[in-house]
């Protein structure tokens, strides 16, 4: 494994640098989650011609902190006759699943916590851990709504992992590597070198662009479903299941679910950015290109994707369970296979 981390260069390979590398994404997740929550509040408010939170700090920018403080103060309720161990474990497992994915996300040319060669594979592997957490939380709550939410959620996660994986696999075929850092490096240069526009290549790639665009869309839609966002939020469909699998949770455990949701949103946005949108590459060739600008480009691209997720949430109604399955198995999966074959053909002809 090559040296991919500036901290190793700075401090050498020792315990301190490892600890720093492990905790830097955590810092990032916490700060990012606060900003994302604020963005959600504000964007929803502006779309609905409201002002949103305005009282905590200037323009209400401290509102997420106030909410975290509120959640810390809340009573931590464990329902009677629930399965205590699983009930208490579930939020941590879900957060672990979301956080573990950060291990392979390349923030910059010189910062990726673990530059393993099977990065994309690893993301899909750990991404499924949250399904276990959801089932644990839903079943252990001893609540029928939670149980229904958990069952729906698992069905949804498993169904939508396949189109998402197909979309990612197509890019793996194009890039012929699963190392996320390598995928980024291939896409360097101007923005038409991004994989959403067919990757680097001659003008012969023109006919594959619609398919890669479609793959991007398929991955984006499946990622919405994987993070339980509208219009695929039926596991926590507020109008029918009250709050779905986390109906019974309160206080900090609820906050963990909340953080995990936002962390998950960032993970899928980061994967989308890395494999389709050029990762830490500048869109304009060498302009503002470099390891520190890389962080800027990466985070801003990923955050834009998150903002689009938020925007969609406040636009669309929610699907029903059977329609969700229909879209997953009968629309996205066949289409992703078609795109996969087209991309493979392109690679064969190249």
């Amino acid at each position, binding site marked *: 494994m090559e040296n991919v981390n500036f901290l190793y260069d700075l401090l050498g390979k020792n315990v301190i640098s490892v600890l720093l590398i492990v905790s830097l994404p955590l810092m990032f997740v916490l700060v990012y989650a606060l900003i994302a929550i604020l963005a959600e509040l504000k964007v929803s408010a*502006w779309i609905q*011609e*409201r*002002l949103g939170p305005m009282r905590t700090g200037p323009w209400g920018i401290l509102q997420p902190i106030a909410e975290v403080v509120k959640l810390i103060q809340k009573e931590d309720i464990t329902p009677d006759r629930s399965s205590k161990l699983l009930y208490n474990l579930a939020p941590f497992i879900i957060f672990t699943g979301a956080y573990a994915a950060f291990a392979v996300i390349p923030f910059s040319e010189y910062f990726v916590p673990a530059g393993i060669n099977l990065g994309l594979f690893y993301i899909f592997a750990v991404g499924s851990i949250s399904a276990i957490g959801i089932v644990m939380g839903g079943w252990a709550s001893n609540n029928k709504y939670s149980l229904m939410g958990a069952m729906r959620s698992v069905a949804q996660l498993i169904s939508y992992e396949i189109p998402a994986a197909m979309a990612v696999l197509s890019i793996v075929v194009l890039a012929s590597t699963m190392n996320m850092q390598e995928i980024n490096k291939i896409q360097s240069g101007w923005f038409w070198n991004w994989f959403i526009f067919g990757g680097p290549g001659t003008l012969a790639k023109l006919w594959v662009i619609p398919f890669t665009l479609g793959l991007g869309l398929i991955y984006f839609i499946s990622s919405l479903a994987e993070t339980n966002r509208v219009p695929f939020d039926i596991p926590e469909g507020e109008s029918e299941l009250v709050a779905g699998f986390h109906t019974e949770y309160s206080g900090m455990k609820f906050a963990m679910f909340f953080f995990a949701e936002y962390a998950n949103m960032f993970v899928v946005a980061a994967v989308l950015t890395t494999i389709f949108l050029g990762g830490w590459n500048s869109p304009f060739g060498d302009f503002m290109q470099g390891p520190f600008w890389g962080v800027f480009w990466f985070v801003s691209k990923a955050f834009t994707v998150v903002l689009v997720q938020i925007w969609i949430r406040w*636009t669309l109604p929610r699907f029903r369970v059977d329609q969700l399955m229909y879209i997953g198995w009968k629309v996205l999966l066949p289409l992703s296979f078609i795109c996969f074959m087209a991309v493979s053909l392109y690679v064969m002809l190249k």
Partner: protein
Amino acid sequence: MIQYIKNIWAGLSSTFIGMRITWKHLFVKKVTIQYPDERFKLPEKARNRLYLEMSRCNGCNSCAIACPVNCITVETIRVSPDDPHQEVHYNGKDRKLWVSRYDIDFAKCCYCGLCTAVCPSEAIQHTTEYEYSVYNRESLLYKFQTLTPEQVKEKERLLAEFRAIEKVCHPEGDAKPAEKKVVDKKTE
């Protein structure tokens, strides 16, 4: 197959139409009123907290009768002629009844406006005051009487003295005029 593609296209296009509308709404003027800092001016007719102008109240009790939830309690004492403290009403007539108690329980009040509609002298009125939250229910019992308890006792004593004298002079005279008054009000 064509229907299948059409459905996908309809799903995508209507999503984009919706997203365009929400995008436009991001930039329009917001309608929120920042409540404690800016306030919406209530219309003059707004029915909020009741206010009683005691100098106009003649103690006729019609507001208490009209109230559907019985939140108004009125008690009166007749003014005895030899009371040194006489009062002239807003319309120039002498006061006939001292209002010794006028309570409104705002915990019960349903702001229907029936009491203000029946008041003959427009003494009880709805105001536009709506911010009067309190910490306990007892504080919602508003007392409007202007007489102090000592004055009430004094007036009761004077009336009792007057009645005693009256009884000696005219043994059955007291009841009739009062009854006549009530009849008058009904026919009004």
